[in-house]
């Protein structure tokens, strides 16, 4: 009995010691600065997408000696974990998502390592027009791996049924054409605007503002949309009017951007989305499994106030958190992951075995050129031209550090204006007040 007790005590002591050690380990911050080791290092990569094919990762490991542990997380969880880990100075991943909208915040907080000295960013910039969206205070904090910019898409068949043969080039013509489609009963509601209070509503407004020739904020973060004659104000009015006048389905008050694309545009229930995702024609509308409008939808050069408007960028990037364990190995991975050769593979040019699931569109112009030449990108030439010449950052001087709070003010107020609980004037005023207050630091 005495032996049994001693034995039990021993076990209890071991358990207690282990749990104390574990608890202590849990509360200790990870290494800061990281190791220069590459060969033999195992890096953690956390992104919102599925991992590249096993064979691709194996080839990377064989070439560099770096093993990759891939963690897939949804966008919201990813952003929360990045914030939680960085603010508590603990390790989360060696390479992870850098969203264009958080570049200012991440740059100011120093949560991501500057990549200028780790990668040939100048050379990359020549092939990646959207790299400017990831620059904060002269430092590149992320490399775009997936090009994304806002484009106008139209269902040519539905436009044709309304007798429209020449596609609109100005916003006024575009609006008239939508009205004609409605009046002729081709579809009850011709336009898709996602009015759910979410990020997609903010980006829709930015793109519409850009098309009307305006900007959202100046270099100091002051709002440029307060005056009723400003493009930003008129863009908000145009969007809300479109809903009130029956161009947009009333149910869109609670429809998100991707939901609208999948359930309305891809099903032929609407004839156009003014601010759609680049690449959607090839990856959604022309895919028979998810679409009933195969080969009917095309990209349209952005109809602006008096001619072609810009295509605002909202790309996804990948960067190295400050608390990364193996920053040098992570840099090698990013170089490999964003290389033109891999982007071509990920986009499916060299067979389905090399495809990165849900990969939208390469961020490199050279990769787009290969895809277009091989006929693997629907409307490739047009998309390449857009990426090279008309894609612009939403905030030319970088997204402000307080962007997430401002964006929430934008989409909640625009949603309120659309639902009728606020006038457009009150909504715009609330958005401007928010920008003024945040930019002044109060």
């Amino acid at each position, binding site marked *: 009995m005495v032996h049994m*007790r001693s034995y*039990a*005590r021993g076990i*209890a*002591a071991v*358990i*207690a010691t*282990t*749990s*104390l050690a574990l*608890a202590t380990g*849990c*509360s200790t911050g990870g290494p800061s600065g990281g190791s220069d080791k590459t060969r033999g290092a195992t890096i953690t990569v956390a992104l919102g997408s599925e991992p590249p094919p096993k064979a691709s990762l194996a080839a990377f490991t064989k070439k560099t000696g770096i093993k990759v542990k891939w963690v897939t997380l949804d966008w919201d969880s990813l*952003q*929360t974990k990045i*914030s*939680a880990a960085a*603010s508590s100075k603990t390790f989360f991943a060696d390479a992870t998502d850098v969203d264009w909208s958080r570049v200012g*915040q991440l740059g*100011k*907080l120093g949560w991501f390592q500057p990549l200028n000295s780790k990668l040939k960013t100048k050379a990359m910039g020549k092939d990646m027009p959207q790299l400017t969206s990831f620059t904060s205070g002269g430092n590149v904090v992320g490399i775009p791996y997936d090009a994304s910019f806002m484009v106008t898409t139209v269902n040519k068949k539905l436009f044709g049924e309304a007798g429209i043969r020449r596609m609109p080039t100005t916003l006024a013509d575009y609006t008239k054409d939508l009205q004609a489609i409605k009046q002729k009963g081709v579809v009850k509601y011709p336009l898709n605007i996602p*009015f*759910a*209070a*979410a990020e997609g509503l903010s980006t829709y407004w930015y793109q519409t503002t850009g098309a009307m020739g305006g900007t959202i904020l100046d270099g100091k973060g002051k709002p440029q949309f307060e005056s009723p004659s400003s493009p930003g104000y008129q863009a908000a009015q145009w969007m809300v009017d479109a809903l009130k006048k029956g161009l947009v*389905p*009333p*149910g*869109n*008050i*609670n*429809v*998100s951007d991707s*939901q609208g694309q999948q*359930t*309305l545009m891809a*099903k032929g*229930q609407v004839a156009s989305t003014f601010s759609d995702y680049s690449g959607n024609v090839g990856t959604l509308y022309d895919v028979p499994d998810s679409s009933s409008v195969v080969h009917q939808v095309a990209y349209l050069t952005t109809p602006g106030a008096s001619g072609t408007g810009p295509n605002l960028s909202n790309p996804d990037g990948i960067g190295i958190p400050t608390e990364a364990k193996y920053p040098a190995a992570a840099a090698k991975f990013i170089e490999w992951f964003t290389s033109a050769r891999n982007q071509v593979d990920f986009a499916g040019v060299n067979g389905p075995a090399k495809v990165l699931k849900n990969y939208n569109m390469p961020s490199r112009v050279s990769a787009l050129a290969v895809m277009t030449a091989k006929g693997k990108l629907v409307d490739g030439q047009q998309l390449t031209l857009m990426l090279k010449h008309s894609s612009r950052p939403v905030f030319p001087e970088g997204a402000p*550090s*307080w962007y*997430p*709070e401002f964006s*929430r003010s934008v*989409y*909640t107020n625009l*949603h*309120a204006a659309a*639902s*009728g*609980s606020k006038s457009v004037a009150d909504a715009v005023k609330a958005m401007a007040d928010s920008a003024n207050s945040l930019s002044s*630091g109060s």
Partner: protein
Amino acid sequence: MTGTTDLRPTVRDATPPSSDRRRRRGPDLLPYLLVTPLAVFIIGLALVPAGLALVQSFYRVQELNPPVRFAGLDNFRRLFSDDAVLASMGNTMLYVLFGVALSTLLGIVMAMTLRHPFRGRSVLIAIMVLPWALPGVVEGIVWTGIWDSNSGLLNSVLSSLHLISDYHVFLGNNRLLTILAIELVQVWQITPLSTLLILAALQNVPGDLHEAAQLDGCSPWASFRRVTLPLIRPGITIAMVQALIQTLNVFDQPYVLNGSASTGTSLTMQTYFISFQNLDFGEGYALSLVLTITTLVISLGIVKLVYRPVEF
């Protein structure tokens, strides 16, 4: 026989009294050591963070505006002057009202239905528990297909029954309708647990009490009201408190179904926005503290009002 009788006192004498044994070997540490792992984890992962949050709620902890400095009640002042937070407080109270009332009522009805054994009862209980096991986000996505105003199942059914001519907008326009629609989804999730808790309480009620009531001429309703209900009050109390905690902390369902629209934002959503989007952790801690105190106060109120000790 004699020998045995003689031996007993000898054996007793050979064993020292337990108090002497303790004195000689010191205090028995085994029980403490056995609970140490659990205690360490509870203290390390719950009490210490809670204590830190409590302290930090009186500090300005803004990642974008360092350094950390004492702010007194400023975080609380800012909370109570923020229209978005005030609106979400109102919304959350409505979630609590709808959620606790509906899940408790449905829980009682379902527990009464499942009280007596019948063929397929265990299968029914297994099916009933399914929504409880599903993550809130998944439920939100599933119910999006039902509430959707452009192509949702509910609109489609109502339209095909000629009950509506145009599709209705259930979420986003009208605050009360939005909250009710969202809360129904959460009620669908939390009612199974309420049912099981009330069912467990029902199983403890002796059958002869009902028989006695019946012999005394009680109708089934009177028997339920005067015999069953008073005896299952402890179970109902626990069911109500768990429903209160779930509804006060509602996040997934409104976030998935209604985004960040003011018609449906909850207090936990505001905590997330303030902490992880605005990176103002001090104010986030303060709001968490408000939520914790609210949970404790209302829980105590429920216990005081509903709970009665029962002895069989």
